[in-house]
């Protein structure tokens, strides 16, 4: 079916969007204003990406000092995806993700304090210390988690979209996943039902080229993951994930289609994670040169150059943002360190909503 005639929607979408990957923001054929971003928004995007980067650097350090336990999957390198996606939606839209969730939660506006405290297993964490790195949640921010089972969040995000349509709301649900999750049966089950029922969901595959140690080409018979949508007649696009403007354009278009037409989309965002799969993975399945080549396209450096070139900021402005972000992260670490552990009784809280559930010993 992948070689069949595309539906009208696909054809339209493909022509406007399965575009060649734009190498950098500088020298792009359009400016931020052309895609509807104000100067202020661009500065905010930069700050948000930097916040995620510095947050995770601090988390990695705390992990090394054994202040954080469990698995820690860093998002470093992928910050343009979470950031652009956040700018393309509204606060009342929903977001759900897999376990590589720090950047996505921070982008949604969950505080660095609450995120860091969760890693430290403190009661002040965004999941009250119950979830840890892989299981961030924040109802206040319409952030529906951090999910630890690969692919588990995909039908759940689809269900959120079902609820939106059921209630006749004009909201959307962004459902993030890794390239690895595309191999799960629920991916296909979800896409089928989303298209069948025209649900306002945008599936975002963050294709960082590896699922743990397995390269995409070793896990997928057709490595162009966006093409999976063709089987369901769903609009789809492949997007450069190192270019925050490209991600913004792509997500924005899909979100508008979801909001107005209740039409789902599948976006494959090509990105890269600089670190190993988790803190315990040295990442020896890829070469130094490969990692270096991707670092050269760093989304933060990329935007930095653009801002300077476009006169959106001076070196001094960028320094000031850096200082501000560092202070915010230092404050988050201090907050996490000084926060209390959850009380032991809280082990039995929130298993059920009943305050008096008779637990067995």
């Amino acid at each position: 079916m992948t070689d069949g005639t595309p539906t009208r929607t696909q054809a339209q979408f493909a022509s406007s969007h399965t575009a060649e990957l734009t190498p950098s923001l500088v020298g792009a054929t359009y400016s931020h204003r052309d895609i509807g971003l104000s100067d202020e928004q661009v500065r905010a995007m930069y700050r948000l990406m930097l916040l995620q980067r510095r947050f995770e650097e601090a988390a990695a350090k705390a992990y090394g000092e054994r202040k954080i336990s469990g698995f820690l999957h860093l998002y470093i390198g992928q910050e343009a995806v979470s950031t652009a996606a956040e700018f393309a939606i509204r606060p009342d839209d929903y977001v759900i993700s897999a376990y590589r969730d720090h950047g996505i939660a921070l982008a949604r506006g969950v505080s660095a304090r609450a995120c860091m405290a969760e890693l430290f297993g403190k009661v002040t964490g965004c999941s009250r210390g119950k979830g840890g790195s892989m299981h961030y949640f924040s109802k206040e921010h319409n952030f529906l988690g951090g999910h630890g089972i690969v692919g588990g969040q995909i039908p759940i995000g689809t269900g959120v979209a079902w609820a939106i349509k059921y209630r006749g709301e004009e909201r959307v649900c962004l459902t993030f996943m890794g390239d690895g999750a595309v191999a799960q049966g629920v991916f296909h089950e979800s896409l089928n039902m989303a298209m069948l029922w025209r649900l306002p969901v945008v599936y975002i595959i963050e294709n960082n080229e590896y699922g743990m140690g397995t390269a995409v080409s070793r896990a997928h018979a057709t490595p162009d993951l966006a093409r999976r949508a063709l089987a369901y007649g769903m609009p789809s696009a492949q997007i450069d994930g190192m270019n925050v403007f490209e991600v913004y354009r792509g997500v924005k278009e899909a979100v508008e289609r979801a909001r107005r037409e209740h039409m789902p989309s599948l976006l494959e965002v090509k990105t890269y994670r600089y670190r190993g799969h988790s803190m315990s993975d040295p990442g020896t399945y890829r070469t130094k040169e490969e990692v270096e080549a991707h670092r050269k396209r760093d989304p933060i450096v990329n935007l930095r150059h653009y801002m300077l070139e476009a006169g959106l900021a001076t070196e001094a402005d960028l320094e000031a943002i850096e200082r501000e972000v560092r202070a915010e992260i230092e404050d988050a670490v201090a907050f996490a360190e000084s926060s209390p552990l959850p009380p032991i009784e809280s082990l039995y809280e929130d298993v059920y909503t009943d305050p008096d559930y008779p637990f067995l010993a």
Partner: protein
Amino acid sequence: MAIMEFREAIRLAMIEEMERDERVFLMGEEVGLYDGAYKVSKGMLERFGPMRVVDTPISEAGFAGIGIGAAMVGLRPIIEFMTWNFSLVAMDQLVNHAASILYMSGGQFPIPIVFRGPNGAAGQLGATHSRSLEATYAHWPGLKVVTPSTPADAKGLLKSAIRDDNPVLVLESELMYSMKGEVPEDPDFLIPLGVGEIKRPGRDVTVVAHSKSYHLARMAAQELEKDGIDVEIIDPRTIRPLDIDLIVSSVKKTNRLVIIDECAPFGGVASEIAYQVQLRAFDYLDAPIVRITTKDTPAPYAKNLYEYWMPRLDEAIEAIKKVLYR
């Protein structure tokens, strides 16, 4: 005998059986190029090639079912789950298919397959990554469930599992992989499925504990020795079939029973053993049976909650004293 890590004992068992029988192959996520997420299959791809050490996509239901299909027509797959937590994605294949096909087909299709991988909590990984699933799977007739506690047991039991004509699930405690022990090098060293072992003979109280909990029982026994309490530890080694006779004969000697088990309490391994023992040895019991399990909640992340949630040494000691009225 050689001293080796638990993971090496498992690898050796697989290598020996793959060399002995060319129908045996290993399949799972990251088992080949990556040497296994926990390095259990290190070097095996190089040794056996990509048709016998097979990397899969993250498609648990798919590759579990592929293993079952291959077994229906005469191969003998070993399917590795990166952890048993993720087997729940494939549970339908294990329970509705692997466990039932021989029966439903009136005996025409045995399913000689092994599913194996790390089980149980391994630190602060949160609710999705901490489950002990032996009770869940032992619930279903048609499946055998094996839970080794030492490298030697791991080797002998896994080899028996691979040679068994039924679906056998081997649940290896994630935290035990680097534990060392003596392992027989005899390529025909087999431990029969369903035969438990008295791992520490004692007079005063029977403690039944398998897998990682066995080591907790050992620590408790060592502590209690100081108080003159002599603990007998029975490791059932396989949960299904269960060596209930061994457990009952021990209880008839000591008249007291404590069960330590990392499963959730409701309908766990401990619950079944307690039922079987009261049925067969009610008159021999001098105290109610006590079980120590993880708490009746999902696994928490925070360090203090997690440590409280797991079966604990202080709880085990207290339970043993309790059945002795001390």
